[in-house]
């Protein structure tokens, strides 16, 4: 493409509401890579809460809205494997019996990417302009890993950062227990899962935990903090964009890692 690719940011509801910094980090990373980034106004959520609760009618209504809002862009990028997976893998399934919308859903699906895989696989970025001093560990969010095959991309970009050491998390591919509405519908089971995860994170000795999905991050951060664990939690985009000076997830300005 000779001109700058025109990218629409699908910011995702959790980033929009809880952690706008991740949205700005995503914009920065894509602009630094030569993209023109826009944020379509008519976006709310990808519809997963309805979809996974069995409410197909509302899911279809929301999906149609997203499809319409994101038409005409070269790419649509989301800082979440889960929301990108919803658009890429599940939207086309929703319209199996509606050829006109199915074609539009397929078209959106083919233009949509999760942020880190967009940087690494589409834009072929091998190096980001960021600095970081410390040891991190990385949790693979389920949808990103298993629906979209995101595994090596964040690790390659992270380990290329000067001063950053990556220590692998045992069972990094095992669910953290978030699961959208699952964590509030089955809190006891979710708690066991996130407790196991928190223990493994602490055992790595890493000071920072990274992942690519806000849902999982809020779940793990909330548990680590409830346990009084000494681990900071960030979205991988914050580190890649060199924004590691902002307070970590669930921390107030001025909070540091307790020693």
């Amino acid at each position, binding site marked *: 493409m000779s001109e700058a690719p025109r990218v629409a940011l699908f*910011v995702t*509801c959790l980033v*929009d*509401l*809880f952690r*706008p*910094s991740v*949205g*700005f*980090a995503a*914009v*920065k990373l894509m602009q630094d890579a030569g993209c023109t980034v826009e*944020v379509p106004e008519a*976006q*709310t*959520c990808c*519809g997963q*809460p*309805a979809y*996974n*609760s*069995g*409410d*197909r009618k*509302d899911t279809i*209504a*929301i999906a149609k*809205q997203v499809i319409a809002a994101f038409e005409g862009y070269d790419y649509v990028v989301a800082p979440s494997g889960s929301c990108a997976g919803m658009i890429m893998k599940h939207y086309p399934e929703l319209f199996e019996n509606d050829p006109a919308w199915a074609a539009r859903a397929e078209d959106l699906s083919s233009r949509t990417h999760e942020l880190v895989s967009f940087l690494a696989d589409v834009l072929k970025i091998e190096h980001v302009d960021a600095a970081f001093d410390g040891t991190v560990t990385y949790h693979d969010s*389920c*949808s990103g890993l*298993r629906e979209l095959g995101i595994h090596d991309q964040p690790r390659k970009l992270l380990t290329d950062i000067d001063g950053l050491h990556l220590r692998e998390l045992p069972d990094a591919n*095992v*669910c953290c*227990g978030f*699961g959208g509405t*699952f964590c*509030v*519908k*089955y*809190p006891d*089971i*979710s*708690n*066991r*899962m*996130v*407790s*196991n995860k928190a223990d493994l994170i602490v055992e790595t000795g890493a000071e920072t935990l990274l992942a690519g999905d806000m849902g999982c991050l*809020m779940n793990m*951060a*909330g*548990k680590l*903090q*409830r346990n009084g664990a000494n681990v900071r939690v960030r979205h991988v985009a914050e580190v890649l*964009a060199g924004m590691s000076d902002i307070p970590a*997830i*669930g*921390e*107030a*300005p001025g909070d540091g890692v307790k020693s």
Partner: protein
Amino acid sequence: MKVSTTRNFKANAAEQLANETLRAALTKSKGHFTDSRAIAAENLPEFEDLRDQSRDIKDHTIENLDFYLEAYEARVKESGGHVHWARTAEDARNIVLEICKSVDAKAVNKGKSMISEECAINEMLEENGIRAVETDLGEYIIQLRGETPSHIIAPAVHLTKGQVEESFRANHTHLDPDRILEEPPTLLDEARTILRQKYFEAEVGMTGANLLVAETGSSIIVTNEGNGDLSQLIPKVHIVLASIEKIVPTLEDAATILRVLARSATGQEFSSYTTVSTGPKREGDPDGPEEYHVILLDNGRTDMIGTEFQEMLRCIRCGACMNHCPVYQSVGGHAYGWVYPGPMGSVLSPGLLGVDEAGHLPNASTFCGRCEEVCPVRIPLPKLMRNWREQEFEKHLSPGAVRVGLGLWSFFARHPKLYQLATGIQMRVLARAGRARGRLSSVPLAKGWTKYRDLPAPEGRTFQSRWKSGERPQ
């Protein structure tokens, strides 16, 4: 049919989560199953192709189920065996009882069978004064303890070896109370010695079937203890109790599926014993049963054909989905409240029991996708669980509070301007409440979350409102 307590899944799960012994047992087994399967899959270059082939074999067979079942029936009869069709679990129980009565059976030796669990055969036998002897070590242990299997291939996986020792000492009272019984081999030897005697006491041997072969009229079982062979060869009568979807067209097809079965289940290349049975003892055969009966169970399976759940009938009962399921590994198999636990059970149980009874099961999943990733016949388990959720939602079976909350959320999600206004206000309130610590320990309407974890506070204004005001990254 076996009594179900799946309605109480939440309470069952809470009870199991509080069980520290269960936790110790599950922690010990988990890594063993998952690591072994991964190594076995990696060591076989054609493993992924074999999964595709196995899927295709099962799909083809289910599409032509009537044809293959009738062909199978004809071959069994040719080999001198009998075929009985059981539409329901009750039919199956009656047929088993009739056969037992015909030879005045006092005892039935049993190879491991989940269909026998589904039909509650042991309970029926006991009610009729016939002793059921489970010969699989795991099944034997839980029978001593009066428990049900918590896993489809490792029925006693919920127990520690200390608990097994306890049960043996309590039940094998004729043995020296001071004997050493701490290590698994000593437990195994003791069980083997006791079971060896029982093999010669039963008039009837009963097994399930991992596969039924239409081409030859054979049934195939795989075991690691050889107990199935002894159960079916020594007694006068051999009953095979199998569900109809176990059928495959040819021995070649069976061989393909066997190559993925053990690898997916235990990580073995092949089980220690693969036993093919075709009809009763023939003239000149040194051993074998005098009568060979096959009971083909439907029990709701044909109702799944032609529906969005048909793919579930591909299942070959390897247990890989539960070995890899973080929910199963947290709560154990008994929490599911019926015969089939884990992801395969969460799809199958609503099909056999009804979604109004078993609706919790397909909901209790994070859709993490590990089950589908390892399923040897590529059943899209999360998708099928979602199908059940859709049926529940359409039948208005989901809880009222969930429906109201979801309806409200959907309304806002479909109206971006209102959504941005409402969420903008909410986030500012939450951000203010959490400003001092950056997180909240208790939030009204979010107790399910804050009971166990803090809620990270929002940063403040939403991304969309900041972007609209012209803010851009530095």
